[in-house]
């Protein structure tokens, strides 16, 4: 056995240092562990300050002793490499371990051990833990807002059918794969709209809006048969004309009234709310902001200076202002800009405002993708005799969109996280409902539970979305 220098752990005395170091580390670990889980202070006989820093000092010395390079023990080497490379890292690792141990008991006791789950009134919530009874009692309000309890099956049924219809893509055989884009871009949004219009609303809420949707979809379908060089003019003129014809000449209103399902009561949008409203708003804004953003991204890259300036102006305007002022505008200023007999529902106004706002961000993301494409792609497409639209639809956009999947996913995430802001126009989705429930005199003092509940829900949604976008990115990654 060679001489031991305790200031310099070395391989020669590996076992001595290993046991000594592990022992010290274990002691410090146990001290903190007992302290936090059993409220037992092992070092209570020492002065206050010393008792406080002792585990840190012991653990540090322990880690110092086991920091031996090329010890030959695989696990020790891994441990050293990952948490124990030098003194500084050792202290940080110890601090993090101690913080985790210290914070587990209070969190656990608040969430589970001392929390109350049973019952349906405030009286059961006497413990120091969370009062999940509050969430349980208010669950319907948090999910559906002020939507009448008896009618809530309509929302459930719509959402379930929409999810099922949306998952068609996974089951489609190769024969139908080529129609999937058409399905998702045109047919699915139309079905979703009809569901929400006839089923969830069940009344004359979306009138003007529905003309717009029908006009847009009709003109897109007809647009497929229009020769490429006329497409631009076509899309400038026809949708608006169709809209005017539908609204003022065809008296479509009667048909829509006829189409109303029997026995369904009208639920006005003011009563919608909770998490379902979050989904409805996110869904529609997502559908609308994408094409608008794409149009302005192309406009910003256009060769026509005037179109370019208008696009730049649009994008920079919406990107320069906070969403809350945009919603303010849609709430107090926008009605001033419309003819007096012209009424737009406030939910629709909010959806339009958020869509335009997010469209500017989508436009910038797509522009990034367009700029990243090498010029050869444009030139190759042109040399094959493709026109502007053909070139973009078949060559440029598929590649550019693939490049910007993460950016677009981030924008959509931001959209979902922005939906609580609609409290400005007086709509209450889940966060709004929480604030309402919090002021209920029978349920005062449970703000924390509500916010934690909503935070968990939002976190799951957003985290799942970001992971999904990461998978998409990996799936469509084509090496060049």
């Amino acid at each position, binding site marked *: 056995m060679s001489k031991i220098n305790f200031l310099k752990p070395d391989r020669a005395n590996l076992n001595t240092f290993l046991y000594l170091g592990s022992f010290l580390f274990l002691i410090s670990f146990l001290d903190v562990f007992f302290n936090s889980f059993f409220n037992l202070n092992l070092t209570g006989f020492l002065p206050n300050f010393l008792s406080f820093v002792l585990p840190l000092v012991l653990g540090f010395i322990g880690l110092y002793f086991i920091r031996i390079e090329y010890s030959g023990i695989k696990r020790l080497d891994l441990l050293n490499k990952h948490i124990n490379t030098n003194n500084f890292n050792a202290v*940080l690792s110890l601090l993090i371990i101690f913080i985790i141990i210290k914070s587990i008991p209070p969190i656990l006791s608040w969430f589970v051990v001392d929390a109350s789950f049973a019952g349906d009134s405030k009286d059961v919530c006497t413990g120091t833990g969370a009062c999940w009874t509050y969430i349980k009692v208010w669950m319907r309000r948090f999910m559906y807002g002020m939507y009448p309890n008896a009618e809530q099956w309509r929302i459930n049924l719509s959402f379930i059918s929409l999810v099922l219809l949306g998952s068609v893509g996974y089951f489609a055989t190769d024969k139908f794969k080529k129609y999937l884009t058409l399905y998702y871009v045109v047919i699915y949004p139309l079905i979703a709209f009809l569901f929400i219009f006839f089923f969830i609303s069940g009344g004359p809420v979306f009138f003007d809006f529905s003309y717009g949707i029908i006009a847009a979809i009709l003109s897109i379908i007809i647009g497929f048969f229009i020769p490429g060089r006329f497409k631009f003019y076509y899309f400038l003129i026809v949708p608006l004309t169709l809209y005017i014809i539908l609204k003022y000449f065809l008296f479509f209103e009667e048909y829509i009234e006829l189409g109303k399902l029997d026995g369904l009561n009208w639920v006005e949008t003011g009563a919608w709310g909770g998490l379902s409203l979050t989904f409805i708003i996110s869904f529609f804004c997502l559908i609308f902001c994408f094409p608008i953003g794409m149009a302005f991204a192309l406009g910003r890259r256009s060769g026509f200076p005037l179109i370019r300036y208008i696009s730049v102006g649009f994008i920079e305007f919406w990107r320069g202002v906070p969403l809350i002022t945009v919603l303010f505008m849609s709430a107090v200023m926008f009605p001033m800009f419309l003819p007096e007999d012209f009424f737009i529902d406030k939910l629709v106004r909010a959806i339009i405002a958020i869509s335009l706002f997010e469209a500017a961000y989508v436009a910038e993301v797509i522009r990034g993708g367009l700029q990243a494409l090498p010029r050869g792609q444009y030139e190759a497409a042109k040399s094959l005799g493709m026109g502007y639209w053909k070139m973009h639809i078949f060559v440029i956009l598929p590649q550019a969109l693939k490049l910007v999947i993460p950016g677009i996913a981030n924008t959509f995430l931001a959209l979902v996280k922005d939906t609580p802001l609609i409290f400005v126009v007086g709509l209450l989705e889940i966060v709004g409902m929480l604030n309402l429930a919090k002021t209920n005199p029978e349920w005062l003092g449970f703000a924390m539970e509500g916010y934690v509940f909503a935070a968990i829900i939002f976190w799951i949604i957003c*985290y799942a979305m970001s992971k999904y976008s990461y998978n998409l990115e990996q799936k469509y990654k084509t090496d060049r």
Partner: protein
Amino acid sequence: MNLKLKDIVPQLITVIAVVLIFGFFTYNAQINMENRGIDFGYGFLSQESSFDVQFSLIEYDGSHSYFRAYLVGLLNTILVSVIGIIIATILGVIVGVARLSPNYLINKFAAFYVEFFRNIPLLLQIFFWYFAALRALPLPQDAEAIFGVFFLTIKGLYVPAFIWQNFSIFFYSLVAAVIAIIVIRIHAKKVQENQGKQIPVFFISLGLIFILPLLSFLIGGVKLSFEVPVLKQLATTSFIYEGGVSLPPELIALTLSLSLYTATFIAECVRAGIQGVGKGQKEAAASIGLTPNQVLKLVIMPQALRIIIPPTTNQYLNLTKNSSLAAAIAYPDLVLVFAGTALMQTGKAIEIVSITMFTYLTLSISISILMNWYNKRIAIQEK
């Protein structure tokens, strides 16, 4: 000029469409305002506002004008943004560097922080801090002093106030120190280029920035004293702190949530920037004999900053825009004071919303112009 019909017509149609839409809106607005008997104009800005604001940096009460109220709101917005930006930057850089740490625990801890705070809506976080976390603080009479001078209570944070004598002399000494440091830096660079000698600029600067203000205390007659907040009883159960500076809970909740939220994005920018510098750069720098500190300072950071700064500025802009969420917890920022209270009182929706939007627009466009200029300046000049 070779103008073709094909080039002109689409542009013309677009412009006509835009003009028509705006014309339609303006026409309707005029008719609506006539019907409701509202006249358009910015004259109301000089009228007496007759409402109070809880928290303002400049002197303000109901007898001041609406323009003054606008300034109060703007200054409060800027205050929250500046504090938020400073905290978010410090936190973001630390977390961003921590995410690159070889230490597994630190790495995961930082990743957890980023994933946790990034995926929860900012508004929810603001509500959480304001309505849940800060409401759990003690009442003024039960508050324990932090370092004996700070008091964190349910009514806000009370900090000691600085009381200066001859503040201008202190300020001039600071300015002088900064100017001296700049001169020395230029000189040091020249000396190094001509003679190859290195002057320890960092230590000289450090000395100057401490010694000159210190001299102003010793010789210039500058005096600094603190006014510590003192608990005072108003009624049997009502207590208040007097003296010092009080930061309202709205401000604390807002800066806390804004900086915690934005720091996650800044951390990602920092991580991407440092990772974006090629590994070869580091190895090349080490192989010509630079010390690890020099590698970081002379090779990695200049290149990483080039990647980090543009997206980080974007995050600063986002923070400034997000500070408008203050309206939700009644912190008197631009949106609450001007687009809220002032709008309710005057009913001038178009004017007030347009001023508010224009303010934010000016703020962000001027910063993005500055950014473009900076980007051009630091871009690598490829030959």
